[in-house]
């Protein structure tokens, strides 16, 4: 890679690491995993940096890689230990944020992955539907329907959580 490209990448990594990690955290609900995902994303971006920067801004491509890394990671057999007794185990306390966002983040972690991705990118990252469609590699209509379903699921989970705590 040319020195100019390398410097360009470093500037991008320094500038976007926090934003990417926040998005990763909202997707996976775990700061440690979020950092791993961002590092993996940046390493993958470095390999193709000169090519993708010639095509224009790389933010959406970076989000696309991050999303793939997260989906790949959540599909790893290592993470899919099967229980035969039908008892749902207690989940590790990964989302420990308190305050007004705590219940919302916990509920978000329960939303199915694709709906969650649409909700996180569309609302938390405040991206237009076209940009989310680019990241998710689907049509804008699909983004709207996934985001709407995600919101519906989220609303249901929040109501259920409020009923339980009442």
């Amino acid at each position, binding site marked *: 890679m040319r020195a100019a490209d390398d410097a360009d990448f470093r500037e991008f990594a320094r500038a976007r690491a926090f934003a990417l990690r926040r998005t990763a955290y909202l997707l996976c*609900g775990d700061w*440690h995993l979020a950092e791993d995902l961002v590092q993996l994303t940046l390493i993958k971006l*470095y390999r193709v940096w000169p090519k993708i920067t010639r095509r224009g801004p790389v933010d959406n491509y970076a989000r696309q890689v991050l999303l793939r890394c997260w989906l790949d*990671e959540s599909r790893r057999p290592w993470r899919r230990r099967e*229980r035969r007794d039908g008892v749902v185990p207690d989940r590790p306390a990964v989302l420990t944020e308190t305050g007004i966002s705590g219940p919302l983040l916990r509920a978000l972690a329960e939303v199915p992955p694709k709906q969650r991705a649409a909700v996180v990118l569309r609302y938390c990252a405040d991206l237009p539907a076209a940009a989310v469609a680019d990241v998710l590699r689907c049509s804008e209509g699909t983004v709207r329907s996934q985001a709407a379903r995600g919101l519906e699921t989220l609303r249901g989970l929040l109501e259920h959580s409020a009923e339980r705590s009442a």
Partner: protein
Amino acid sequence: MTDLETRLREVAVPEPPLGFDPDALADRAARDVRRRRAGITGTLAVASAAAAVAVFAPDPAPVPPAASPPSPPPLAEQARIRQALGDAVAGVFPGLRHLSVGTSSADAVSPARMSVTAEFVDAAGRPGSFQLTVYGRDAPDDHVPVVRSCAEPASIALRCDRIPQPGGAVLLVFESGVVTTGGLTKLRGFDGALHRADGSMVTLADAAGDAADSVQLSEEQLERVITDPAFALP
């Protein structure tokens, strides 16, 4: 815009400091790219030499070059790690019999990574099988699983602990469990991943599958085996 959409847009996440240095990461990525390129250049050089032989050699029957096989760690290293795993397993299961330790050739894809499986019968006659994988600090990223974090919403490990170790290493211990039909037999074992400060890693997992009477590692046994400094590749 609904109230929920507004809440999502304004969601407050107290962010911890970044746990990695973007510049150091760029250095690592650059090294990785150089290593890959060196590998490709080497392969091309071999292919070019073979093509030159094919074109200019008077004998029309040169043997075409075979695809280069994966390059595992040196045999001496493999033998050392096999021996170390045998010793470690014998240390935590006194009186075991029929111990056999073998290298998994399917995982021999890099000089910086190897998997070793130990099979045995313990003093009580129960079979046991564990797989240990050692990743050197130069193991290609594609071959290193991202298991540096203890938990995620999708994880259904019964429990996961993050245990700091001397020298800046971190041990992740995952508790797995099977309760057989009728709820009479409870098998609980532990898998682990040790992350050392230099970037190298060791994982240890039960390889006995669903054998109901197989030996399981306790948390203490797992920690004793996985933290053995012999499990390292250059």
